[in-house]
């Protein structure tokens, strides 16, 4: 099982003190986390994009490039690239370049995004939500396939100029980019990833861990039906959480609450409270906050349901202080990972 962390560069005002990390400090903090995650043997460092004031990252590629220059072994990926408002050709070039800088450690995870600021910003029409994504994911995979075959690509679509016998440079290491599709659990998204034969990562942002068992089952069945080697395709899980020797759930709560209050207000949900939080931090819930043993147990429970290959945590919700994040990353690598490896076999055996 691969373990890792991901972040959007949260720079919210601290719920307790009101203090705010500057965007410049946030970049330094993100890179410090990448170095530590690499040192303690975590497998993945992900960066996602937002286009609003509470986040420091709207441009994923330069952050990953900086992380690539400061790390040795850890995989570096987007979590996620809002592909609907990107040009797949440019994204392919950027991630191929990160792959070259990092010696083949770059990954690209594509999604539609659950926030929509990038649509008006880049002139995409929300009314094309489905169609934009369909077209762009198909082109991105087409570019990667052309790269693998070292062949030019001819393509035409609705949302970008046609490509006529074009070759896109540079190509990534070994001519192949590792591409994942992210989804929140819409069955047709799972079916699409299965048909396309990409890896898939599920955002477990609520409900019970067991709810996602069906999705993983659907993905593998769909991939097999489409003629792909289902065992070679990976299933990932992304979720929020924090690890500490003691008090992790209490430390995490005000930050989680801040983000959930914001989202609830924007989307017209009722705000959550400590009771709903406690249900989610309980052993079967979808928040991975606790001591190393508790978090390891929950990841193993998730594995029982989903048989997943990768589990990544967003620890810095609403800008949880850097000292708590660093401790959490350290414990994830030095204590949680050995517990999971002992149960499931090491990452290397697992991947074989």
């Amino acid at each position, binding site marked *: 099982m691969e373990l890792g962390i991901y972040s959007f560069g949260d720079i919210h005002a601290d719920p307790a003190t009101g203090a705010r990390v500057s965007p410049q400090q946030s970049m330094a903090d993100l890179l410090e986390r990448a170095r530590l995650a690499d040192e303690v043997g975590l497998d993945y460092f992900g960066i996602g994009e937002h286009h609003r004031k509470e986040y420091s990252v709207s441009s994923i590629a330069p952050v990953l490039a900086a992380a690539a220059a400061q790390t040795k072994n850890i995989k570096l990926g987007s979590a996620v690239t809002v592909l609907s408002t990107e040009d797949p050709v440019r994204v392919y070039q950027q991630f191929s370049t990160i792959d070259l800088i990092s010696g083949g450690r770059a990954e690209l995870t594509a999604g539609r995004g*659950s*926030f*929509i600021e990038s649509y008006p910003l880049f002139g995409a*029409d*929300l*009314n094309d*939500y489905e169609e934009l994504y369909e077209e762009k994911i198909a082109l991105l995979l087409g570019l990667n396939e052309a790269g693998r075959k070292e062949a030019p690509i001819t393509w035409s679509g609705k949302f970008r100029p046609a490509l006529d016998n074009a070759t896109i440079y540079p190509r990534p290491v070994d001519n192949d980019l590792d591409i994942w599709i992210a989804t929140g*659990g*819409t*069955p*047709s998204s*799972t*079916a699409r990833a299965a048909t396309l034969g990409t890896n898939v990562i599920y955002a477990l942002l*609520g*409900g*019970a861990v067991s*709810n996602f068992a*069906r999705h993983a*089952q*659907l993905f593998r*069945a*769909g991939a097999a*039906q489409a003629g792909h080697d289902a065992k070679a395709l990976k299933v990932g899980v992304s979720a929020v959480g924090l690890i500490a020797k003691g008090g992790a759930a209490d430390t995490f709560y005000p930050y989680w609450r801040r983000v959930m209050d914001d989202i609830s207000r924007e*989307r*017209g*949900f*009722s705000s959550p409270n400590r009771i709903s939080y406690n249900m989610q931090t309980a052993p079967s819930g979808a928040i991975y906050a606790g001591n190393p043993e508790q978090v390891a147990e929950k990841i193993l429970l998730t594995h029982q349901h989903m048989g997943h290959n990768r589990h990544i945590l967003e620890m810095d919700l609403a800008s949880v202080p850097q000292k708590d994040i660093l401790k959490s990353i350290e414990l994830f690598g030095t204590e949680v990972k050995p517990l999971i490896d002992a149960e499931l076999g090491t990452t290397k055996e697992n991947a074989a």
Partner: protein
Amino acid sequence: MSTQTIGILGAGKVGTGVARQALLAGYRVLIAGSGDPKKIDLIVSVMAPGAIAVTAEQAMAEADLVVLSVPLHKFRTLDPAGLNGKHVLDTMNYWRDTNGDMPELADAPSSSEMVLAHIPGARLAKSLNHIGYHELELDARPDGSADRRALAVVSDDDDTRALVLDFVERLGFDAVDAGPLSNGTAFEPDTPIFTGSYTAPALEAELVAHLAERGELTTSR
């Protein structure tokens, strides 16, 4: 009178979630996506084992109760003739992030009334829109449980209301009659009831408070 066959339009999170709970409650469940049922065969067999993937025409024709669970911006793809005279349950909500801009919604008192204007012959009720699809499974309880969650039902048709109240009860929730369809504004997004968890007395109190506040207190009883 008890409903036997549920026809669900939409094989997404909500459609398959309602299907699973309806199967547990002993209903025969048909699900239709857009177009050829073969496209959703696998989704249905894994996400709601026991449900039958069919065309929308078949789902509408055979169902005692038709459940609408398509993305709201696709409401115009619903077939008014197929739904004419049918008992229909609207579970949909407006999400700008996925539905895009819907100017016609601004002219309608509620999203259900916008939908009804497109399918005027349907006997429409609104419910299940105000509970998360995964909570349909997590929060369902046997009748009489102390912590049983309550869900509101509105309709202008007495027979449809009775059918849907019974359906919601059989899914594992206390069903609360909240009056005519226009009262559905009390549990659309941006209300406390929307995604809030209430027992029946608490839900009734919240409905009264909301409708009184908006000067819309009307009841069918």
